[in-house]
Structures are given as C-alpha cells and as structure tokens.
C-alpha cells in the first residue's frame, strides 16, 4: 500500500519571530497551530490527530495537546529524529489518514534556543541519560559543528571538494534571504565573505553554519475529501521515504547520508526522478549538509556536489535547482535547532505559487523537501517528501 495521493498538506505556517524572549515554548506551539488553522481555513475542532517531536515540552502529545486544548484526538505520534522529524511526521500522518485512523492531523514545532543563549553548535550536547554512545563520544568534546566538520573534511579528501564550493551554498541562501523580511541574516554574502569568516571547526567557517533562532512552524495534513473542501491550492504528497544511518559497529562511511535510502524510497513511490523536481528544500544545518544530501538524493553524482552547487546553480532564477528560497536555515530560520518543518513550509509555498515573487519558481508543479536530524557524522535520521501541485 502506498501513501501516494492519500493526503494533502492543507495548512502551513511559519512563525515570523526569530527572537521570542517574551513567549514560552508552549505558547509558540499554540501560535503556530493557530497560524496553520488560519492558513488552511479550518478550526480546532476539525483536528483529530496531533504529532510533535522532542522540542515539545514534557510528554509532547500529552502536555502540549493539553495546552492547545485538544480533548478528542484519535491519532498521536511523537517520533523524534531531530530536525528530520517533521518530514517523517507528514508521512506518518498520511499513513494514519489512509487507514482511516485520522482525517486532519496537526504537526507543530517550536523552541527558543536564541533566547536561552544556547551554544547550539559548539557546546557538547546530548539527548538524555543512558545513551549508549555517550561514554564513547562526549568526553572527546563531540559537538554538532565537529561532527559535521569531519564529514566535510572527508568529502574534501575523497573528492577534492573545496571551501569555495561549500561557500556557494551559503551565497545562494543569502540571495534568497534578502527577500525575506523575517530572515535573521538578510545580507547578501560572497564566497570571499564565507571563506574569510572565522574558522569554527576545520573546514567549516562561521558562515558555513546555520543561524540560531527562536520560533516554530506548523503543518496540517488532511484527507483528499477535506483538502478539496477548502479554498487553498491543493498540494498532494506523492512520495515519502525515511531512513536512519549510524556508525554500523564502527564501519561508518562519512561520504554519504541517509538521504541515499530515504530519497530513493520517496522517488520510487512518487514515480518521478530527481531531474523532474523544480524546487528543493534541502536541510541546511551547515553547507556540507546540503552538499551531501544533494548527491545522495541523486541531483548529481556522488563527489560532484561541489561543482553542482557552484556559480549560483542553487539560486532561483539563475541556476538549475532553486533551493531554500526562504533563505533556509543558513540565513533565515532554524527554530528550536530543528529546520525540518520550515523545509516543508517553503516547499508548500513554492508548490502553491505563494513564495516571494523574487524567488518563486515559475514551473512549480513538483517539489521536494528533505531533512536530516541528529548528527551527519555519527548517527542521523533522514526523511524525504515529494509533493505535487494538483
């Protein structure tokens, strides 16, 4: 059984804030939920399924569903695979809808790492107690930045990828961010700006890293019947894939990501190929994250990512594959240190034709969103969605 055509994204909302010192995390969840309901033209009572991930305080579907006032949910999920969670949630929501276990599912994300002055990338972070790998990694100062930097270092060693090529990814994101009034970094940057910014973790510079922002986003996934009853453009999910990748007992290969599996599964279900995709939201915690995923999704050959992203090939109106036209995590928003939901939101804007006119892709019938969660260099979740404007 396939989820192809069994569910539509009918509501998508990104909180405009990037610094929410005056709001709680739970309140941000409520505000994005409200925004998505307004976007869809639905009311709270239409929602019969709710999904959140580890950013939701407490036992997510319990405490946050309580805050939001949901008393009649018949489908809940809280799968947490970091920033990739929300793409996989869309697929899980459609599975529930296809089985008749829900008809209208809300997904929320919110957090405030900027207000809480979190050193997201450069301070050691773990995800709970009794984590079996922590005793073998935390003492070595494992951080988000160095776990991604080792992927970049190996990619450079194997394929001759350069810092200048990685920089083009940030340059493209900045060209898009200049049109987004809510973006944290709206200044257009050059390759020189990126490679001359301070080194954080060789070979990643400060401008190879994403922004740290407060905020959040929400999505509503609904059955075909509900989607057709609404007044919004129809964005149908036609393919989805999920995967995990880890150290495999010590035989980790840093040159590829879980996108190799999740992407292949999504393309197979959708019955399309990478060259059919007109717009792609690609998870961009760091420039290297984008490079790896583009290769693994099949937009170019393995090892050719550096050439593929160069010379503005990711800039809307300039290159062959417009990506992250909102400015992405690299320049606009990475709420709660998890960029998955904003990846889907911008892909929905593109499919609807509601992106900023300066970055809107003309032929926007087929779009892709992809997320990586956790650490590319140790263990991560991977989720791919392919959507079609009906």
């Amino acid at each position, binding site marked *: 059984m396939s989820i192809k055509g069994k569910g539509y994204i009918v509501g998508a909302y990104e909180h405009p804030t990037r610094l929410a010192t005056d709001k709680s995390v739970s309140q941000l969840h409520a505000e994005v939920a409200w925004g998505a309901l307004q976007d869809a033209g639905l009311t709270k009572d239409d929602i019969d399924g709710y999904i959140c991930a580890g950013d939701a305080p407490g036992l997510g579907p319990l405490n946050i569903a309580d805050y939001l006032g949901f008393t009649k949910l018949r489908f809940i999920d809280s799968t947490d695979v970091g920033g990739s969670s929300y793409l996989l949630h869309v697929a899980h929501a459609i599975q529930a809808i296809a089985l008749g276990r829900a008809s209208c599912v809300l997904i929320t994300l919110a957090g405030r790492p900027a207000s809480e002055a979190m050193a997201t990338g450069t301070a050691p972070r773990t995800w709970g107690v009794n984590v079996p790998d922590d005793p073998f990694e935390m003492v070595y100062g494992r951080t988000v930045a*160095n776990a991604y930097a080792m992927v970049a270092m190996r990619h450079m060693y194997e394929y001759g990828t350069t810092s200048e090529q990685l920089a083009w990814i940030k340059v493209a994101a900045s060209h898009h961010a200049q049109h987004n009034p809510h973006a944290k970094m709206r200044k257009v940057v050059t390759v020189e700006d990126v490679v001359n910014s301070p080194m954080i973790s060789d070979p990643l510079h400060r401008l190879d890293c994403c922004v740290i922002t407060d905020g959040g986003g929400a999505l509503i996934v609904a059955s075909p019947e509900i989607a057709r009853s609404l007044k919004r453009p129809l964005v149908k999910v036609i393919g989805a894939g999920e995967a995990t990748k880890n150290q495999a*007992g*010590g035989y980790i290969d840093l040159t590829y990501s879980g996108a190799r599996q999740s992407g292949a599964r999504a393309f197979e279900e959708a019955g399309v190929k990478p060259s059919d995709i007109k717009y792609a939201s690609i998870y961009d915690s760091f420039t290297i994250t984008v490079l790896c995923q583009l290769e693994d999704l099949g937009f170019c050959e393995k090892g050719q990512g550096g050439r593929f992203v160069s010379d503005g090939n990711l800039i809307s109106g300039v290159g062959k594959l417009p990506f992250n036209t909102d400015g992405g995590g690299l320049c606009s928003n990475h709420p709660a240190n998890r960029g998955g939901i904003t990846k889907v939101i911008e892909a929905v804007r593109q499919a609807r034709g509601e992106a900023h006119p300066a970055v809107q892709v003309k032929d926007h019938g087929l779009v892709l969103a992809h997320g990586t969660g956790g650490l590319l260099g*140790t263990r991560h979740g991977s989720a791919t969605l392919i959507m079609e404007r009906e």
Partner: protein
Amino acid sequence: MATPASDRKLMAIQVDPTNKPYFDAASEGRLMIGLCKDTNKHFFYPRGCSPFTLSPNVELVEAKGTGTIYSFTVMRTKEPFSVAYVELDEGPRLFTNIVDCDLDSLKIGQKVRVVFKPTQEGSPPATMFTPV
C-alpha cells in the same frame, strides 16, 4: 604556524554495568574492542550484542592500539583540540581526539597510536591517539 593541542580538562565518563570491562581495561592502559564470534568481525564501541547479528555471542578482545586517521577536525576554540575518527588496524573506526601534536599538521591517513588521558577523580581515562 603551529597550534599545539591543548591539555583541556576532560569530563567524567558515564560507566555502566555493560561498558565497565572496557573502561577497567582502559584504566590499565589497554584498548579493548568488541569481537563478534559468529562473523569473526571486530566492532566498536563494545557492547553486549553483535551489531552485525544482534547475537550475544561476543567478547572483548585487546586491540593493537594502532591505526590511521580516517577524518578529523580542529575545534578553533580558546583551547583548540582535534576531534577525529581513527580507523584501527583491526577495522573499526572510533570517535576520539588526536593529542600531543601540532594540530595544524594533522592529515587524513596519518598513522597514530593510542594514549590514555586522565579525566576526573574516580572516572576512567579517555582513549585518545597521538601521531606515531
């Protein structure tokens, strides 16, 4: 330009009942790795099951303690340090630090050997590597 590896203060390691034999051996200056006795393949980090078959038919065996740098990075913090994956001669790649060296001279493929660095009082040492 040289950047000497700093002697940073290391955090305590969380020892649990399953990983204790590994850390007890580290305290005695020995590097242990897992061996799956069904596939005769080594693995890291050590655990009570085979990551290849999930079978409990595993044992802890001593590694030579030599290998090569598979990938690395230098954290350009106030006290710079190098995080790396070292590929042991037995096969597995482990997450570690390269120490007692010039951080600016490190290279992928470089030969290294194990050294054990003290962490906190009452906590086992950390398994690190230094260029040969």
